[in-house]
Structure formats: structure tokens, C-alpha cells
């Protein structure tokens, strides 16, 4: 199996990444902070191809929490794309949007969730929702392709209308488990 196939969503017909891209435009998002994940690869390509979006690849996810705060100070809306393991890197920085009462929407692709192969992904994947909620984030899950767009829409609306960190977790049932050929 080719690596590209191995690392991308199993159902190429599923258009949920394109629908997320459409929502980012609809909500007037201007800054996209990300640490890449295979599950986000199609959405990342769409964002990189859009000259109206400022796409910033981070060295660690907590940088994105800080960057979105700076963006909001300057009147721009941003979104953070990451994998579930990256949520663990964000914990203390989430105090920034909470204390300042600023929007911080996150779109998280899950690992360690449904049919995981890699033992190292399980601890953080299993804790992702609890960790976010422990840090005051409103979390919604999408476990079918049809659920992704409405859930992301709700996450963006909650963040920008009520000024707080919010997250959509896109389950591994939607993304397909990375099997390393096994």
C-alpha cells in the first residue's frame, strides 16, 4: 500500500474536509494555525491553496493557542487544527483564552480512539475530551462523516459568539485507523 493512501482517510468520496473548508470561509476565518495530521491533510491542502488564509505551521500546538489570542486582539478570527496528541501540549496555554474570554476554536482529529494500532497514541487519545473539558473547553464529537460539518459549525459558532475555547473531536471511525499495513 502506498504511504499516501495509508495516511489519508479511507473513503476518498467523503467530502467532510471540503465542508470544513467552506465553514472556515463562511465564518470569516483568516488565520489557520496547525500541526499537521494525516486526518487533516485534505483540509490543510485546501487552506494552503487559499491566499486569503494565513496558514501557520507550528512547532508545537500551544503556539497556536497563543497565536489565536493575538489574532483576536487584532480583529481576526483563527482556528487551530491538530491531532489528539497535540491537545496535551495545549493544557496550560488554554488559561489564556479562558482568562481573557476570547474565542479559541479547535478542530481535532482523533488517534488512540477506534481501532488504534500504535500504543503511544492511546493514553492521550483516551484522555483528550476529559483534558479539554477539565480546562474549560466546550467539546463536541463527530463520529460519522455526516456529523462533521454541523459539529464544526457549532464549535465555530460557540467560540465566536460566546468567547471561549471550543473543540470538535473528529473520531477515528470517520478518519480510519492507521494500520501500518497490518
Amino acid at each position, binding site marked *: 500500500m502506498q504511504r499516501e493512501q495509508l495516511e489519508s482517510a479511507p473513503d476518498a468520496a467523503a467530502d467532510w474536509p471540503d465542508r470544513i473548508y467552506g465553514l472556515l470561509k463562511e465564518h470569516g476565518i483568516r488565520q489557520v494555525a496547525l500541526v499537521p495530521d494525516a486526518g487533516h491533510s485534505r483540509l490543510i491542502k485546501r487552506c494552503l491553496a487559499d491566499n486569503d488564509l494565513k496558514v501557520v505551521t507550528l512547532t508545537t500546538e*500551544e503556539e497556536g493557542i497563543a497565536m489565536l489570542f493575538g489574532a483576536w486582539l487584532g480583529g481576526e478570527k483563527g482556528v487551530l487544527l491538530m491531532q489528539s496528541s497535540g491537545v496535551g501540549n495545549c493544557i496550560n496555554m488554554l488559561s489564556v483564552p479562558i482568562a*481573557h474570554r476570547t474565542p479559541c476554536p479547535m478542530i481535532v482529529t482523533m488517534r488512540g480512539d477506534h481501532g488504534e494500532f500504535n500504543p503511544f497514541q492511546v493514553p492521550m487519545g483516551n484522555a483528550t475530551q476529559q483534558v479539554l473539558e477539565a480546562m474549560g473547553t466546550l467539546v463536541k464529537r463527530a463520529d460519522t462523516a455526516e456529523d462533521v460539518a454541523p459539529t464544526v459549525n457549532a464549535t465555530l459558532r460557540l467560540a465566536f459568539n460566546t468567547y471561549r475555547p471550543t473543540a470538535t473531536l473528529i473520531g477515528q471511525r470517520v478518519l480510519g485507523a492507521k494500520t501500518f499495513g497490518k
Partner: protein
Amino acid sequence: MVEIAQSGKLERRSVVRALLEDRGDMLAIGGLGAPAWDITAAGDSPLNLPLWGGMGGAAMMGLGLALAQPDRRVLVVTGDGEMLMGIGSLATIATKQPRNLSVVVLDNEHYGETGMQETATRHGVDLAGMARAAGIADSRRVETPEQVLALRDAIRAGQGPLFAQVKIDAASLPLVLPPREAAILQARMREAILGPEAHLQ
């Protein structure tokens, strides 16, 4: 006037005062701890965002703000411990090359808020060298009043991104505290930039 302490090193508040003097509409973010007190001592303002937390995030907040407001100068003033915690952000900032962003590290070689434990710069870590190697071409080490004034001119010129490691005296100075309600701190800066419609976004 930029002062020299008895140690022969720059006096931090006079450095920050010089950088913010006649600032125009320049925006300033102060990293948690003494840099936040320093920008406040220079004159609290809606154009200041003093941080009470988010250690390691000051430079990235500066990047988000600089990208959102490309026609304004954005100055991040932070400490060596805070910068070291978010050191990867130098690479992130370098990839975007924001001309309007300056990051100034007040380097006293210690964690000043927690009992003056030594930081890595006390052991020779060259922050300006790291910033330059990351791709921030104008990265300076600043040790004299003349260099502070040259830094001020460079910040105003907006030919960044710019990074400066300013070697300062380690003395802890009297606290000059900004407002602690962080919702007010963000809202006042947003209103200063965007006007009343900031609150209708």
C-alpha cells in the same frame, strides 16, 4: 535616557521606557512577570497587553497580532525564561517573516519571579544566535545605551522581523502592576485598534 546599573549592565525600566517613548500607535505585549511590570511602569495604556500567564506564548501572540494588523508595529517585550519556554516559536515566526513584529528579550539570566534561579542564558545560551539561525536575520545582542537607541530606531523602521537579546541588570524592582482582569486587558486593546465595533464582532 537609558541608564546603566552598578553592575555595568543596562537598567531594565529605562530600556523599556526608551523603546516605548513616543510610540505612536505601536502595540506592545509584555511577557508575564517583570516585563509586564516594566511596560506598565513606562505608562499603562490600552495599546499594552501585559500578560499574567501563558508562559512561553508571548512571541506567538505577537505573531497573531502582527499578521492581523500588518500596518501597525507590534513589539513583544518578554524575559529570557519566558522566551526559552517558547523557543520553537522563533522558527514559526521566521517562516512568516512579519515585517512589523519585533521581539525584545530582557535577559537577566534568571527566573526573577520565583527566587532568581538561573536560566540557560546564565550558562551562555545565545538567544540572538538562535533567532538568527532560525531565520530572523536582524537578531541583535544589546549591551549599551547606544545599542538600545539603535534598536528603538530599527523597531520604528518596520523592516523586521527583528529580535533583540538585551542584557540587563538582574535587580528586582518595585512592582508596578497592570489591571489583572484579563477580559478588560483584551477588550481595551481591541477597542483601541478596532474602535467600538470591536465589541460587535
